[in-house]
């Protein structure tokens, strides 16, 4: 049955100097539909979102809302017409309560006073309607990121004129469990008959939540298709234009190599306790767990960033690094969960690559620039880091390439043990596969790798062995990865038997 779309975008184009960001893109959103918009970084999805929500003007094309042409000159215009964008960076006031945030800037009044009763009771009903157990009086700052996101979405839903909800990568900071709850909320919102555009990096999530999927690549629309006719492999090919070489799973098994890292009764940061494990040379040892399970605390402990107790042995030597400086001297490298904790954005690519080996590219404190830059050039080439040149500030690189710069930093140090904490989070699918392949390759060359992830598929793809963490402890170690299903990993990680 043909329905009138709530939102229709027809042949919209947008150019930035030097780049055609959008080239005659069309898409529509039906009432009660979740329409996933996929694309790699730079594919144009953010640009399209910004145009739809009035943040930037379009160069050409038309936008129709409920069949009528609209021209948004500012985000306010879009808001008034019922188009609301929920961005990745949340826009809540931490010190105000849930209720105050939801009604921020449009508090109902009674005379000159704010009508608190109405605010709290309406918020209460709103929370109840979507099955969220939260006190409207709780300050937003004390909520978890996932809960804050829920508040942000409810803030949009509470607008009486809401027609289109744009969710920009809402799952990027959420654990599996929280994603489930978010999807329940989205399913509830769907029932109210509004249209939802869901932007994501994660293919399986898009397939799960969306009714239809539109894929952008290099500013052009590749396809719009019903989600049930698609699978991850097809989406990957649409996204990258390349066919997939699926990494084989089930490496494991060869346990003859020497032990690089051994932990006995190891505790870190007061939360992670009683960890016993061995990481061998030439293996990828995955620490799998949901957010908050203690994986990162363990990694930080190994790198001298947390207080630790217990026995840590690195290549037959008992060690206890108390600072990153000591850990690095021992031969440990660490890619933190958040790239912002490791990159100096305003330094150029080459300086970020050599930051941990300054003493090696200098003599008596004076840098040998030629040596330094040629070393950086080598890594840019071998890791295929996309940058105009090595003198470009890291700030301007895409997430995947930033991650590769960090990888290069540690490879330049030739570490014995490399700890990688969620190295593929928030980067392009293409770069994701590339980095996983690099990790396998490094292990083959004899490096010991401790790889942290909360994506079960990723864990199975890269791992030789997998340890599952929950509540600050290792609950199970899988010695082989073949024959394990991702649901088994998830069940162990969440404590469901």
């Amino acid at each position: 049955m043909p329905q009138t779309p709530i939102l229709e975008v027809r042949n919209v184009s947008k150019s930035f100097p030097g780049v055609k960001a959008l080239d005659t893109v069309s898409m529509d959103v039906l009432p009660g539909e979740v329409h996933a918009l996929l694309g790699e970084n730079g594919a144009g999805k953010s640009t399209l979102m910004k145009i739809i929500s009035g943040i930037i003007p379009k160069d050409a094309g038309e936008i129709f809302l409920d069949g009528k042409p609209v021209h948004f000159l500012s985000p306010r215009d879009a808001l008034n017409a019922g188009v609301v964008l929920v961005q990745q960076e949340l826009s809540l006031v931490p010190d105000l309560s849930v209720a105050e945030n939801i009604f921020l800037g449009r508090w109902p009044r009674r005379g000159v006073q704010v009508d608190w009763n109405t605010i709290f009771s309406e918020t209460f009903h709103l929370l109840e309607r979507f099955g969220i157990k939260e006190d409207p009086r709780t300050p937003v700052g004390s909520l978890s990121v996932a809960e804050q996101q829920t508040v942000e979405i409810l803030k949009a839903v509470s607008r009486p004129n809401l027609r289109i909800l744009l969710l920009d990568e809402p799952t990027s900071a959420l654990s599996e469990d929280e994603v489930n709850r978010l999807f329940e909320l989205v399913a509830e919102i769907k029932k109210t008959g509004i249209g939802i555009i869901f932007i994501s990096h994660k293919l399986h999530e898009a397939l799960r939540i969306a009714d239809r999927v539109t894929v952008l690549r290099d500013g052009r629309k590749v396809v719009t298709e019903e989600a049930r006719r698609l699978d991850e492999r097809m989406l990957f090919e649409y996204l990258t234009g390349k066919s997939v070489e699926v990494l084989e799973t089930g490496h494991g098994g060869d346990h003859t190599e020497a032990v690089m890292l051994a932990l006995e009764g190891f505790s870190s940061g007061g939360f992670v306790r009683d960890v016993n494990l061995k990481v061998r040379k030439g293996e990828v040892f995955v620490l799998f767990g949901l957010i908050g399970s203690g994986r990162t605390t363990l990694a930080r402990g190994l790198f001298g960033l947390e207080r630790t107790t217990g026995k840590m042995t690195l290549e037959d030597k008992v060690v206890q690094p108390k600072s990153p400086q000591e850990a690095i001297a021992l031969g440990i490298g660490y890619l933190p969960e958040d790239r912002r904790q490791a990159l100096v954005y305003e330094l150029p690519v080459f300086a970020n690559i050599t930051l941990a080996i300054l003493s090696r590219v200098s003599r008596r404190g004076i840098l040998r620039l030629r040596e330094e830059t040629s070393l950086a050039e080598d890594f840019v080439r071998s890791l295929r880091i996309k940058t105009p040149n090595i003198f470009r500030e890291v700030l301007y690189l895409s997430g995947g390439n930033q991650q590769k710069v960090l990888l290069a930093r540690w490879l330049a140090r030739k570490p014995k043990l490399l700890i990688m904490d969620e190295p593929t989070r928030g980067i392009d699918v293409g770069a994701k596969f590339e980095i996983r392949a690099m990790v396998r390759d490094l292990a083959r060359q004899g490096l010991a790798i401790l790889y942290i992830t909360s994506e079960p598929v990723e864990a199975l793809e890269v791992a030789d062995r997998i340890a599952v963490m929950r509540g600050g402890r290792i609950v199970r170690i899988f010695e082989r990865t073949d024959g394990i299903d991702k649901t088994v990993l998830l069940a162990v990680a969440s404590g469901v038997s």
Partner: protein
Amino acid sequence: MSQNRAIPAWREGESLSRALVNLLLKGGSLVGLVALSAAFAILSPHFFTLGNWLNIFRQVAVVLIAASAQTMVIITAGIDLSVGSVLALGGCLAAVAMSYWGWPFVSGALLGVFFATLAGLASGVIIAKGRIPDFIATLGMLGAIRGIALLITGGLPVPSHFTATKLAGYLPQSIVWLGSGDIKGIPVPMVFALLVVAITWFILNRTTFGRSLYAVGGNREAARAAGINVDRIKILVYGVSGLYCGLAGLVLVGRMNSANALMAEGLELQTIAAVVIGGTNLFGGKGSVFGTLIGAILMGVLSNGLNLLNVEPFWQRVVNGLLIVAVVVFDQWRRRVTRD
């Protein structure tokens, strides 16, 4: 769209106003310096003469040396408010040693510079080990060090008329030469200050210490995670700042042929202004000492030009203060335009 952010929209512009904006964004302080010089050249016939320019450089030398240090400190996302006091301490100690104790120039100079460096290191230790904001620590040092300088001199100028005799109590010729001499017509303090700028450039661009300064200021956590000893870098940079101030103190004492504990008051503002005009980011991680050179000269030209035009010194203070505010506003605007 991270790639596009590198190419701001105005690059493509063709109109005159766009071109002007472009010029301002790229070479802000240099454009300001040229424009200001042109204006003064029109208003005063004495401005654009070799003699006057050498005079400007002579006056700027002290600020320039201290501002070079301030550049390094600000690149680490710090700020040194004690530069003026430390300069006075170093200068007074050197002057007391040379004039009253009869020390030769070199040992007197070393004594002053040594204690100035020590004062800087003290600030660094307080900041790094005491986990106190740079601003507060050096504000405290500003008062304390000035007090020590007053105690040393008893509040009197050194050498003072009461104590100086024909035989002892005058400053040696070497320090006077350093502050106001010239080599074939070129002022010694100017040569000295430019040498300091060159050394600073070398430190910032060619040494591991310099690279660490940018890393610490750009992202402290990242610097630590890359194995840089952040505390050590912080302590060292304030030590270097003290050392530079000690050197600047010698130049100032030589120029005035006298030292007193209250000299170089307000130097912190002048150096910060020179650094900011020069385009160094007040929040750390970005900056260059050549920018500071331009900034310091611009400030020197401004005060020299206003003098030539017989503007009251009190007004000059007002103008200098407003200039700092204007520069920061300009800097914010520049950042907005280039980021979007």
